[in-house]
């Protein structure tokens, strides 16, 4: 566990709070978009969790994770810091989960901050005089789980891709293609489900269907990662 927290500390210092001013631009933009611009456009629909809002909240952590995981793994190899880290006593597992945890925490954390700020913005801008929380609450919780799973899927796939990529650029390009394939796959899967079945599902059940659908590939990817993320394959 100590090794894991050491990696979390290192990733936080090296990637998230590396004291470069440019590092703060993307998070500030995300918070501004999610916390002010979109809620302002959506109005009360933002708080009542419209399907478009749910899609945005699930896509943003997925997108942020895709952007950062390549730098965390392929970038470390590209900057020639990985081999020195591997030559130390730290375990392979701590390196892997430290990187994944910080990337997901960063992406999902920004999403949560955006949601919180968006709640305030939507309430203020609606001008109804009373404050509301996101509702229905079950949909809200399912949406959070779904966005977390989307982020984990992106991180796991990103690490696997980064292990085979020579540079961050190559890893990010492959992940962009992967995202496109994933979106097409989701559309094809939804089209293949009989329309009668989908019509019987309410919004909450529909999200549960997606949660189930994302849990399986997540479990497979985590299993593959645990088996393949080894020193001898990383050099």
């Amino acid at each position: 566990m100590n090794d894991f927290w050491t990696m979390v500390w290192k990733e936080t210092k090296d990637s998230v709070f590396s004291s470069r001013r440019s590092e703060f631009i993307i998070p500030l933009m995300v918070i501004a978009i999610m916390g002010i611009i979109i809620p302002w456009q959506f109005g009360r629909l933002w708080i009542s969790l419209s399907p478009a809002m749910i899609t945005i909240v699930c896509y943003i952590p997925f997108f942020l994770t895709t952007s950062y995981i390549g730098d965390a793994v392929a970038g470390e190899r590209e900057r020639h810091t990985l081999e020195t880290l591997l030559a130390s006593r730290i375990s392979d597992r701590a390196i892997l989960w430290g990187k994944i945890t910080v990337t997901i925490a960063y992406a999902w954390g920004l999403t949560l901050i955006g949601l919180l700020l968006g709640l305030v913005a939507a309430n203020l801008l609606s001008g109804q005089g009373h404050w509301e929380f996101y509702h229905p609450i079950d949909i809200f919780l399912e949406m959070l789980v779904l966005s977390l799973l989307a982020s984990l899927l992106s991180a796991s796939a990103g690490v696997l891709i980064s292990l085979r990529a020579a540079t961050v650029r190559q890893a990010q390009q492959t992940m962009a293609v992967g995202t496109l394939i994933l979106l097409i796959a989701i559309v094809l899967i939804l089209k293949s489900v009989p329309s009668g079945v989908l019509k019987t599902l309410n919004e909450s059940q529909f999200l549960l269907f997606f949660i189930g659908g994302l849990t399986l590939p997540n479990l497979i990817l985590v299993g593959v990662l645990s088996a393949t993320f080894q020193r001898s394959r990383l050099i």
Partner: protein
Amino acid sequence: MPDPIIRAEHLSRSFGAVKAVDDLTLEVPAGVVFGFLGPNGAGKTTTIRLLLGLIEPTQGQAWVMGFDIGKRAGEIRTHSGALLEFSGLYERMSAEDNLDLYGRIYKMPAGERRTRARELLEHLDLWERRKDRVGTWSRGMKQKLAVARALFHRPPLVFLDEPTAGFDPVAAAALRKDLAGLVAHEGVTVFLNTHNLTEAEQLCAQVGVIRAGKLLTVGSPDSLRMRDKSPRVKITGRGFGERMVALLRQRPEVAQVDLLPDHLEIELRDEKSRNGPLVSLIVQNGGEVEEISRGGASLEEVFLTLMREKNP
């Protein structure tokens, strides 16, 4: 005699058809700076990777500090430090944080990490810049910090892979001086990969020479110099020319003559041959002799001879 800190037996590693390390059998005693000499691509870096258990051998075995590289590589990495081909520093982090990270990795308490960082950074004149991002530092400063990082947790054994490669002579000499000071102060065993013969002569008590993955010879720099037993005479002066070289070559005691810009290098056939007749010949043929020195081959000459030999 104490157990060697590194012992390799018939260690080999291939990458496809290329044998990067070929049947390496080697013992490195504890407490010395061991220089592993070889040209680029000789297999030096692969040897360090094998000894650290970062890659697996295709054949053979090795033990580092008594730990089998195949079975107990984690313990080898726990008890050693490494500065590999690249400094491996996190350039977006400060020098202090770079050291702190490795202190955390080696489970050093916070107080000890602070004390140790100060001790090493002050020793290397880096203390004042400890809060700076490493990316803003010069290459020499980065490499010094990387050496400090390798020694940070006081390992008994340190692997250094060409620490002065690509440095100008002044920077390389400065880093060598710091390195020698630190190694003496810390009392560690150092496995030093280098193709710099000055470095090997200045720092190493023992050297091994590797070429195309094969270990050619091992010994102290002095014993290697004596490997080529032919005595050499260096005659500095003026008026030397091809005619004089031809005359010298006709002498029975002379094995080889090289004409260099300001001196003649003469290799004699045996130790008993005298300098006098050669000097007389030079003077009689119009040469002016200013200085005569006699000795064995330099480490560089031995190294180049080994590199030229067709079949190691």
